[in-house]
């Protein structure tokens, strides 16, 4: 039987989603996202909600994702305060282990699914928030990758046994969760920007809509920078335009990968500004935007440049070398090429 033909659309799909990525990059996301989910679990008042939980309350309308995730426990109406308390404790333990990278292949899916379950339960009683949802979904996707192969106790144990994968060597196709998170983040910003334009572009560009919200939150939080800023209408006009430009153009960072850091810094500035001036804290988006940047490949390139002689030709002819040492998965660890002779 012949192999199925691989067309250009399949190639485009593969090259867009399945880029190679270094385990160190995945590990950075594992650590940062797990830390944020753990922090959110312990500071968002879920413990208090569990204590006051009444499964028969009319406002408890389980979200579809909760209905799916709670099947092993008998469905969303079988969840009790005692079970949720035990789940929360288990999830927090799994989260700490995932953060440290111990038994990552087992504890990270457990932690990711557990946080989605507990959070969807909390949001099934009325008010929902979008503060952490993308991080939690991203963590679930990350569980399908070798993100415990670097910067983890698992990697340390493997190194001690002599069968580790170097953290800097890219793993073929493993970058798809980062790409998905990037796309979801771009869609979220696009949604925020387009909604502002659709509901009142004129009022937004006049600066008054932003001035209203900034004043409201600055007065509520008594933020000194916010109280100063709200009196400067010219800055509001400039800020409103800059914000729309940032939100609607973030999607370009999907294709202009080399300049993605500009939008990541923009995200950091926008949300730090909202936090300082309005008391509106939304750290998950800048965290995602910063962690999906290709940090490890940048560091690798820098390291490689540091070892290149200034007189060396930028393009070197390929050489026949010995295969070098390979790890159990067949990934080359070292090359046994002899050093080039000067002037060769």
């Amino acid at each position, binding site marked *: 039987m012949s192999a199925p033909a691989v067309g250009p659309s399949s190639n485009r799909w593969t090259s867009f*989603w*399945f880029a190679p990525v270094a385990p160190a990059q995945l590990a950075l996301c594992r650590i940062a996202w797990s830390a944020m989910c753990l922090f959110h679990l312990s500071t968002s008042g879920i413990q208090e909600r569990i204590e006051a939980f009444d499964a028969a309350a009319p406002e408890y309308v389980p979200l579809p*994702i909760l209905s799916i995730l709670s099947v092993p426990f008998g469905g969303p109406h079988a969840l009790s305060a005692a079970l949720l308390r035990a789940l929360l404790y288990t999830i927090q333990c799994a989260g700490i282990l995932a953060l440290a990278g111990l038994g990552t292949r087992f504890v990270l899916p457990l932690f990711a699914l557990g946080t989605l379950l507990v959070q969807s339960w909390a949001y099934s009683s009325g008010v929902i928030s979008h503060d952490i949802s993308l991080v939690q979904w991203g963590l679930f996707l990350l569980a399908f990758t070798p993100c415990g192969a670097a910067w983890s106790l698992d990697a340390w144990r493997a190194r001690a046994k002599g069968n580790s994968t170097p953290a800097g060597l890219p793993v073929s*196709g493993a970058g798809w969760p980062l790409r*998905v998170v990037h796309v979801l983040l771009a869609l979220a910003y696009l949604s925020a920007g387009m909604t502002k334009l659709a*509901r009142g572009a004129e009022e937004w560009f006049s600066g*008054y*809509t932003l001035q*209203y919200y900034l004043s409201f939150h600055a007065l509520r939080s008594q933020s000194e920078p916010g109280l100063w800023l709200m009196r400067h*209408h010219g800055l509001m006009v400039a800020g409103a335009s800059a914000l729309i430009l940032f939100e609607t153009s973030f999607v370009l960072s999907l294709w202009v990968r080399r300049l993605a850091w500009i939008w990541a810094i923009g995200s950091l500035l926008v949300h730090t500004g909202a936090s300082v001036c309005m008391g509106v804290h939304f750290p998950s988006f800048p965290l995602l935007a910063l962690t999906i940047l290709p940090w490890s490949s940048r560091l690798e390139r820098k390291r490689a440049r540091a070892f290149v002689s200034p007189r060396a030709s930028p393009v070197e002819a390929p050489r026949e070398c010995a295969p070098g040492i390979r790890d159990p998965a067949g990934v080359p660890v070292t090359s046994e090429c002899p050093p080039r002779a000067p002037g060769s």
Partner: protein
Amino acid sequence: MHSRTRRVASVLIVISVGLQVLAITRLLCPPRSMGALSWLRVACTPRLWPFVDYPMFSDPHAPGDVLAWVDARSESVGGTLEVLGSHEVRRSSPAESWDAAYARQEERLRALLGPTLQGRAHSLRFERRHLVLSADGLVAPACDGCPDGKP
């Protein structure tokens, strides 16, 4: 990466992006005013969580817009005041008077806060407050009793 793993990943990619697109475009949540499409209202926010839309800070505002609220307090027999929070007042339509909107919110707060004070010798007190949007931000209105900023 094995081809089976890649297939699973492809399914997750399609689900993630597809649900996020549905959430932000509201294709499966047409407005109630479009009665003929009511059968399509199957996935309104937050049914698709963790995929949600992001409409924050998008309701438009213009100079003269009012931010109105009620400060609720309970007063004991001895005259001690206990703050019970500030509660925003919104008109149900531009035609509704601010007086009616304040009264509606105070009635709601009486029903909400009243039971918590039962058995204690306290009375509920409300203070109506508002600010008006100007080029200097939200500021006190030019005169008393002119919540829309126009004397």
